């Protein structure tokens, strides 16, 4: 517990970006997520923690409707982005996902060049009018992902040739190239070594200035280091949700306390 540097930042009174009420998820017969209510604030890093299989990744995948791509998944309840129901029939998941970007557990660069990886989103969404604009977006995104200096001379090389940490930062650059409003990160550091993890964590902190970031993590230390708000999930239930400092120092629920002190998990 000693290495937990609780972030000494209070949460500014940001407005709510996403509100979720009564969310239930079923995978076939399995009731994977039970009645979750969460408000996610703008320009804040929110961490979802909890033991394996507790439903935190499932909930994350509800926020950009990635569960739609799993045939047996069924989502109920109300999730609103800026007040608009994202499960409304009129909402196009394609457009939703441009606004709510996602970074995955394992780096998954496309087997294309570094440039094409980052440019892919802006291209399909038609965000640029010409090559110069696209070049600018690629450069800013790579700079924001702290990768530009490492790859600026080999943008034409394949993205799969980078190291694990670089690949993950490339995936982050790819996700922020479409200027999403929310960035979902599903255990983004679990496949990385400590140095790469530190780089990505630093990056997450920087990203907070522009996006609302939601990060699922296995590591309490990481949650403590990067997030301002933390939600603890257990067995498909949202047990406790609040400011990170409060969750880690003064949890209200005994289950949270047990998890944080390492008695369940």
């Amino acid at each position, binding site marked *: 517990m000693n290495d937990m540097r609780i972030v000494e930042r209070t949460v500014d009174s940001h407005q709510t970006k996403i509100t979720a009420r009564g969310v239930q998820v079923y995978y076939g017969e399995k009731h994977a997520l039970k009645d979750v209510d969460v408000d996610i604030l703008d320009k804040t890093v929110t961490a979802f923690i909890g033991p394996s299989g507790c439903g935190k990744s499932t909930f994350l995948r509800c926020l*950009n409707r*990635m569960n739609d*791509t799993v*045939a047996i998944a069924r989502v109920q309840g109300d999730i609103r982005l800026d007040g608009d129901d994202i499960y409304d029939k009129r909402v196009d998941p*394609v*457009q*939703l*996902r*441009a606004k709510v*970007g*996602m970074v*995955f557990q*394992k780096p*998954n*660069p*496309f*087997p*294309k060049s570094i440039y094409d990886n980052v440019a*892919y*989103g802006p291209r*399909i*969404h038609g965000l640029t009018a010409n090559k110069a604009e696209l070049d600018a977006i690629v450069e800013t995104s790579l700079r924001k992902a702290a990768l530009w200096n490492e790859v600026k001379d080999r943008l034409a090389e394949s993205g799969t040739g980078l190291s694990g940490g670089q690949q993950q930062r490339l*995936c982050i650059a*790819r*996700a922020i190239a*479409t200027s999403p409003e929310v960035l979902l990160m599903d255990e983004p550091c679990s496949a990385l070594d400590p140095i790469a993890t530190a780089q990505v964590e630093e990056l997450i902190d920087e990203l907070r200035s522009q996006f609302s970031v939601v990060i699922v993590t296995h590591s309490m230390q990481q949650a403590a280091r990067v997030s301002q708000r933390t939600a603890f999930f257990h067995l498909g239930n949202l047990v406790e949700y609040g400011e990170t400092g409060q969750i880690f120092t003064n949890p209200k629920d005994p289950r949270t306390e047990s998890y944080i002190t390492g008695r369940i998990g």
Partner: protein
Amino acid sequence: MTLIAFLLLFAAAILGYVLNRSAARSLRAGGAQLHSLSTFHGGFAALLVLVPTFLFIILWLLFHASVLDRLTMGGLPAGTLDGLDSGATQLILAEIKSIAGGRIFGSPEPWKIEAAERLAGYRAMSANLMLGLTALLALGLLVIARRTVSPEFRARQRAEGIIKGLMIFCSSVAIFTTIGIIASLVFETVRFFQMVPWHEFLFGTTWEPQMPIRADQIAAEGAFGWLPVFLGTLVITVVALFFAVPIGLLSAIYLNEFASPRFRKFAKPVLEVLAGVPTVVYGFFAVLTIAPALRTFGEMTGLPIAPNTAMAAGLVMGVMLIPFISSFADDALSAVPRALRDGALALGATRAETVLNVLFPAAIPGIVGGVLLAVSRAIGETMIVVMAAGLMAKMTINPLDSVTTVTVQIVTLLIGDTSFDSPKTLAAFALGFMLFIVTLGINVLALRIVHKYREIYD
């Protein structure tokens, strides 16, 4: 006779089993500690008798016919066969055989009847000899097996050793088959190149394999340049792929990305039915339905469509290849890791964009491997082209024209009577050799691509 020999063999094997087992049992009853169970002693004896004797009978059956033929022909009055080529000799032998079998046509020469009687005598003798030797061999092995029974004899290990040897033999059948294919093709091809220079075959642009009417006419008039034949094969292959590749790929994309699980469950077996239809059926389909339809189409539009147009054979071959390509593409698309698909979808790509921009490029090696295998199939496909393509070799790449293929030429050259010393017959083997090399090369390349691709994502 053969049946009796086999019965004898099995009886001896069973006898060996019973004898050795009871011998082992009586040893045990006498208080001895046996290394192996008595049934293993029996099993060892049965195997020891069975394997060599079986091998003996098979070898005898394989070779006795040609030995008898040689004896018969060798015993003919001196000078009878002088000046006859091997075709005529074969004819005489066939006649002698049919006389020996009791089928007499017309009134054959006395020396033929005499030879037939000798042949019949040899046959009876050979059958008795085989039976006698089989019995002798089995008996000898029985005695040897019986001698082995002793407390220390490791019957289980020995029996398992024999079984392992049998299994190794089974595994080597595949190698023998390959050796047999290569040996027979090379052997006959070399003989062909002794009659026709190899460069004429490889680089010649005329293919007119004519039956030499007189012996001194060998290949003087015939031309054996394989290029037009191979070109015809390529034309039909290209037509087939032109049809099959887009349809196969698009079907795979639809099934993989858009189809509901229920539709997929119904559509995949239906496509597999197309793959299970024998090619002779496709050939008849081409002749019965597709060729007349194309002819009518040609008459309506004024296109010069030849009666045996390469289009008909190519189209039908394309239908045959659709399931092949679609299942390869389906596998290749499914093998792309889910993470890549998720990555594209999470950026807001539509399903079509995901497939075309991300999945498809990633699956290209697997798909290319599948298409190459399809090419090799199309080149080696026989019945469709035998029934629907032409016989005349032309240097043309016009798919509306009539072309011939390597396989068509092999079949037409070899259907009917074949004697192994006319260039016409041997040319078929030379074509077969080229076919084997080309398809083998493509297959090896394709399998390598597919394997490499699998390694990337495993």
